[in-house]
């Protein structure tokens, strides 16, 4: 194989100062490795935090909000819309509120026909008191179709004792949050008594306990079947207050919420609107990661720039004689730019490998275990996208850092050097 003479010169010079070339390369290696490592870890953290915070929040939540709009109140009927009269009503209150979704079964079957919807889970929720001797513990009782609820919130993985499906088979079974069960001092098989604010009460048998890793959920929530709550509240069997939806793509929630609001006329909330802090947290962590990573890569670029500048300063005579012998500015540019690019490309590849190894290493480090963490290892995301970006930006930095000194070399005036 015969290398073009420019590359032969470039390669020979590069190999003649292995140490210097290697140190320049180390800058690129560490820059890119840290970029890969940080971005993989940060994305893992983002995903973990999002998963945890969203573990008890549906993608889209449809419910009947209490309206505070009383413009069509009794006054208009009494005063017959007389424009000469102004009526001010202080502190109006609704006469009668029914919080259920009137056409719930239609909405559910309609949502289930949509291709982007994964799970539709109806809910009838009520405040209850758990009787524990003389003490009454406040709680929330969710009446659900347990199979769908299990798919909505991955309940099966969150069961501490018993199984979610036990609700189907047991007569008047109840699943308790682990915190709640501990407070009530009950285990699977025990009975608990619930009372509603309206005064109805009923006994249920504990068939399992669950934990979401969120004390706000685990300490107050309990599941029974939909019909269980309907009986407790003395409502008919299509009385439903909420519909929760899980989507195939979580990012489509905002769009679907808008569609639902228009189509069904009930308040529809997507997870982003109800939890703006998740997005904000992600944005802050992402920004931090990118700023630090790009700084590292830029610093690596300055390393190459410095070393190539030094090399070129020490090679003025060689450049002059090459020019005298018939190499033009473009050849000289090629010779020195190719050296930077070789450093950049090899450094980028080695950096990607090191970055992958570091990320992999971290993903095998056990995460300190507590009662509420479900994470066995540090969260790390492996996404080829970031590897391409790291390599691309690394090479771009090297190119810019290499082209500036190389252009200086290309402009050397041989006469000025050879005469001195």
């Amino acid at each position: 194989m015969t290398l073009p003479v420019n590359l032969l010169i470039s390669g020979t010079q590069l190999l003649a100062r292995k140490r210097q070339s290697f140190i320049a390369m180390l800058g690129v290696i560490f820059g890119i490795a840290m970029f890969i490592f940080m971005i993989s870890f940060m994305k893992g953290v983002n995903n973990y935090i999002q998963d945890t915070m969203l573990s008890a929040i549906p993608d889209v939540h449809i419910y009947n909000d209490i309206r505070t709009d009383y413009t069509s109140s009794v006054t208009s009927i009494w005063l017959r819309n007389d424009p000469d009269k102004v009526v001010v009503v202080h502190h109006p209150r609704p006469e009668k509120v029914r919080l259920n979704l009137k056409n719930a079964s239609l909405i559910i079957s309609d949502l289930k026909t949509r291709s982007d919807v994964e799970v539709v889970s109806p809910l009838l929720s009520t405040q209850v008191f758990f009787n524990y001797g003389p003490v009454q513990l406040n709680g929330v009782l969710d009446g659900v179709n347990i199979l769908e609820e299990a798919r909505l919130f991955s309940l099966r993985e969150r069961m501490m004792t018993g199984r979610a499906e036990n609700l189907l088979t047991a007569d008047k079974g109840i699943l308790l949050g682990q915190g709640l069960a501990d407070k009530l001092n009950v285990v699977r098989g025990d009975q608990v008594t619930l009372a509603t604010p309206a005064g109805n009460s009923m006994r249920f048998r504990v068939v399992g306990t669950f934990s979401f890793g969120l004390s706000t959920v685990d300490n107050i929530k309990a599941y029974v079947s939909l019909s269980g709550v309907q009986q407790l509240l003395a409502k008919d069997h299509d009385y439903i207050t909420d519909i929760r939806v899980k989507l195939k793509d979580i990012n489509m929630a905002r769009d679907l919420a808008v569609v639902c609001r228009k189509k069904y006329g009930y308040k529809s909330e997507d997870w982003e609107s109800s939890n703006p802090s998740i997005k904000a947290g992600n944005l802050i962590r992402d920004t931090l990661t990118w700023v630090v990573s790009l700084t590292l890569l830029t610093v690596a670029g300055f390393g190459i720039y410095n070393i190539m500048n030094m090399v070129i300063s020490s090679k003025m005579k060689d450049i002059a004689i090459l020019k005298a012998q018939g190499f033009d500015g473009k050849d000289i540019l090629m010779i020195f730019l190719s050296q930077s690019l070789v450093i950049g490309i090899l450094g980028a590849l080695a950096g990607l490998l090191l970055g992958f190894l570091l990320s992999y290493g971290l993903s095998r480090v056990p995460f300190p275990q507590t009662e509420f963490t479900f994470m066995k290892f540090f969260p790390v995301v492996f996404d080829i996208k970031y590897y391409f970006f790291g390599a691309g930006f690394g090479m771009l930095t090297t190119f810019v850092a290499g082209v500036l000194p190389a252009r200086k070399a290309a402009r050397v005036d041989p006469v000025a050097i050879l005469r001195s």
Partner: protein
Amino acid sequence: MNEPILEATQLNKFFRLPEPFQVLKDISLSVQKGEFITIVGKSGCGKSSLLYLLSTLDTDYTGNLSINGSKVTGLNEHDLSGFRNEHIGFVFQFHYLLPEFTVLQNIMIPAMKLGKLSRQQIEHNAMQRLEEMGIRDVALKPSGKLSGGQQQRVAIARALINNPGIIMADEPTGNLDSNNTQIIFNIFRQLAQEGNTILAVTHDKDFAARSDRIIEMMDGRIIH
């Protein structure tokens, strides 16, 4: 053979810094093929400036310059580089060998740049040049491991590798002891006899005395 290989007419050159100064004044010069010419003169008389101008390295001048029958005045940097590669061989006061390369590679580089022959052919020619210089045995040494006299002989071999029409030398013995100076003298003499055209700047009277023609300069003019 009365065929001019280099013709210069009305060359003028100015230095602008540190203060405006005319270094070459209306120089006209013709070099015949096969001539061995030395340019002599006191320091600062403009003899080196003239050489760099004639060798196309310096393009900041007025006047006309033709080498090998083609006009080189006004060519762009790329074309001039190609022209030098093919038609001009350089020998300087210092050897300017590339330190990372072996002796053989240093000689081969201009020919590889020209790219008219295969690597094997170039290597063969380079070895032949070394043979002529009497230093065949150092071919594979790094260029930095040679003595000053050997390095200058390698530089001459490098200047000859593309069979240039004219060899330009700037004080080729200026940095050598008398023994090596003698060796380089003899090589130049030998090259002249073989029909090479040589244009050398020197302030060595003995060296000049052995050339075909001496051009003497003073204050930017050819006086003799």
